[in-house]
């Protein structure tokens, strides 16, 4: 057998192992109740509760934005995001949060929003990071 063939096989093996490992890095979309149990960083998908007020007062704290979100099970939870308020969140039809539970509030490190464009049914996705978590 040629050397290159041996190395080729070895590298393919590495690639397969790598792809398997990648999926340990990936996670699943979960709900607030799961987040409460797990206490780890995860994704929660849901909708903004538009009946409750959104709080962002940059004069007192430019890095705190809070709102209420209902997850796909209908559980409602207060979300606190360390960062400026994403501009279009009122119009969002779906929100994907990254973060973890802290007591009764969910602390988001990232907000990914899907908003309907005003004039047609196209959706626009926006992603906002709270960089405080990344450092």
């Amino acid at each position, binding site marked *: 057998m040629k050397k290159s063939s041996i190395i080729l096989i070895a590298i393919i093996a590495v690639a397969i192992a790598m792809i398997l490992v990648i999926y340990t890095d990936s996670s699943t979309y979960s709900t607030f109740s799961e987040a409460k149990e797990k206490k780890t960083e995860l994704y929660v998908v849901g909708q903004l509760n538009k009946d409750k007020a959104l709080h962002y007062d940059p004069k007192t704290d430019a890095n705190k934005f809070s709102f209420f979100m209902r997850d796909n099970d209908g559980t409602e939870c207060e979300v606190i995001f360390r960062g*400026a308020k994403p*501009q279009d969140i009122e119009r969002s039809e779906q929100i994907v949060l990254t973060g973890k539970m802290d007591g009764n509030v969910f602390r988001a490190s990232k907000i990914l929003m899907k908003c309907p464009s005003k004039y047609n049914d196209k959706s626009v996705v926006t992603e906002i990071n709270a960089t405080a978590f990344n450092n």
Partner: protein
Amino acid sequence: MDVNYVGEHLLPGQIGQFFIVLSFGAALLSFISYFFATKYPEENSWKKIARIAFWTNAVSVVAIGATLFYIIYNHLFEYNYAWAHSSKTLPTYYIISSFWEGQEGSFWLWMFWQTVLGSVLLFKAKSWESSVMTFVMLCQAFLASMIIGVEIFGLRIGSSPFILLREAMDIPIFREANYLSLITDGNGLNPLLQNYWMVIHPPTLFLGFASMIVPFAYATGALWTKRYKEWINAALPWALFAVMILGAGIIMGSFWAYEALNFGGFWAWDPVENASIIPWFTLIAAVHVMIAYKNSGHSYFTATFLAMISFVLVIYASYLTRSGVLGETSVHSFTDLGMSGQLILFNVVFLVIMVVFLTVKKKEMPITEKDEDIYSREFWMFIGALVLTVACAQIIASTSIPVFNKIFGTKVAPPLDPIQHYNKWQSGFAVIVMILTGFTQFLKYKRTDSRKFLASTVASLVVSLILTAAVVYFTKTYTNLIYILITFASIFCILANIRVLGDAVKGKWKLAGSSVAHIGFGLLLIGAMVAAATNEVISVNNTGYIAVSGFDKVEKPGDNLFLTEGEPVQMGEYKITYIGDSIVAPNTFYKIKYERIDEETGKVKEHFVLQPFAQNNAKMGGLIGTPATKHYVTHDVYTLITAAAAESQATHAKVPAEDKTGFEDYEEPATYQVNIGDTLRYRNGYYVIEGLNKEAHLEKIPKGPSDVMVGLKIKVFSADNKQYEVQPIYLIKDGGVYDFNKDVNEQGLKFRFTGIKPDKDKLEIMVYQKPLPEKKWVVFKAIKFPYINFFWCGTIVMTIGFIMSIVRRNKEEKRKALK
């Protein structure tokens, strides 16, 4: 019932649509004719038809573009595309970028470049023309079908850029014959795309994508016509060109991300970014294996496979970005226009072509039975290409999670922190690739003297170690092992290539191109690493004051800093002040002054004003910020507005002057009974009632014999020692009582002289004060990117290296052709 619509320009759309159908038909005809021309090379008529069809297609593509541009440029908002992507306020150069904001426009761009490349091939490809053009025209037909927008058997194929707004939407206003008069302006271009990089980045990127069909077509054509060995020479300049252009396009995208996007950096492993880098990696690998084959005869299959898969991956990338499949994970993918089925077919057809040719012709491929020597360049080039391919597989696997979810119905979420996830894998691969690129320079094709090789390698390694230590010390990256390793590997690669370049100066110019490209890539990698490793958010509140207690115990104060107009804040080494804003519609520019002050002398060592801007675009979702950057040789300071007082934005909409009563700007008035000589206070100072003026007169109102007209002399002293005199007037005319107020605008004061009370011996005045203007404020974020110039510098050097290589390979091919 049909409505006779008023004012529509239907002709351009009909012309455009005609040319779309023509371009599709011509591409198909050209494909079929080239197919038979390759099969029956002795019959010249096939080739003739194919060429005529090609030129018909070329003319149609140009005509489509011209028509679409005419529609957008003239703001014909009866067309959906013009309405959705442009507006009257856009300057011409952004009208150009609105041209490819939509998918239809970007498909056109791809077709256009393919036409340009096709015409070059028609003149240059000579004996390869028929077989190569078969695949180019097949691809061209697929692209035309994406914008054809016709319904066949109830199935809509493609999405035409020429559909009318009233066809695109079903809302009541389209039942009105003169609906056009109601549509005053278009939707406009997304503010993020209103950047000069967006004028040139998409065309470059699409030229890169389009040019990847050429190596594919050569490789496939070679297998088809059994000209196994020849294609590599002919395709090599094309492959280098594609790699160069695509690389430049990707980096331009990262310039755009850095300068216009607000995600705080130049690379974020966004799925759309990944989609463009995947084929780049495989084609880079392909180029190396092609060169290795050329010089040694080894790895024919790998070279062919990589050249082919690169184009299949281009189509896959466009499926990823255009089908809406990334909807939940990407910020900037296109949305589904209902052509994902078509895109899958496009992808599958080219994948099948690849698989069929590779399996059917496997046995006939030129394969050397000889084993490669460990001390040979081709062996390690092959290994390097494999490592690149595996790196690429990692990116594909992680980016494709949403695709797998769609196929298998699973609900796997992508990694929580994509940047970290990709960096973790890719930095490992980068170290291996750079070390390979380094020591391979000391090897010769086929066989190298191992003693010589080891000596020069070890020498370079030692020098690299010393240099790495210095770089790590100066950039302060000593805490991160993987960054140190990458820096080391890149420096080693640069040094090794500088040695080759040194030989080039002595006369071996042949190898200069590749070494320049390698040096450029090394610089780029060091720049990216250092900037990524050491960029820091500097807009951290230094006062340590945290407004919300409790919650912040475990948190750092955030990255956004609040600034009130005129009130300086210390931020790291800078004192920063928000000194005001200016409006250049539709943008508001916020002036942020940075000052560096010497702590001992108190002197300003350095100052500059950054003007990040934001667009309050209701249609696109509120305030969208565009950063401003101060460039230094060693680092950049990047500033982005994340929120701003609504007031400074609202100045766009001024209340028309005639609607004003003159009092709405003031607070509730205060009424005072005063005597001459009284002193009263107001918010910003005091005023003295100085006396009555019985000689007062008013223009336009003549004083009658029985009328009373008295002025009250008031002197205002402001806190900053300014004096103003003002004289409100009291008038009794024909039995009626009037008063004429007077303002001190500078102080926001308005006085009325409303009465004379002889019984009390008092005068009555009313004083209006303007509320203190609310101070303007902004919330912003500032990031420092050290040594980012390595990144940009590396890009330029790399591109120069590619150009040198293309010139060299082209000459070689010509020399061969002459023999």
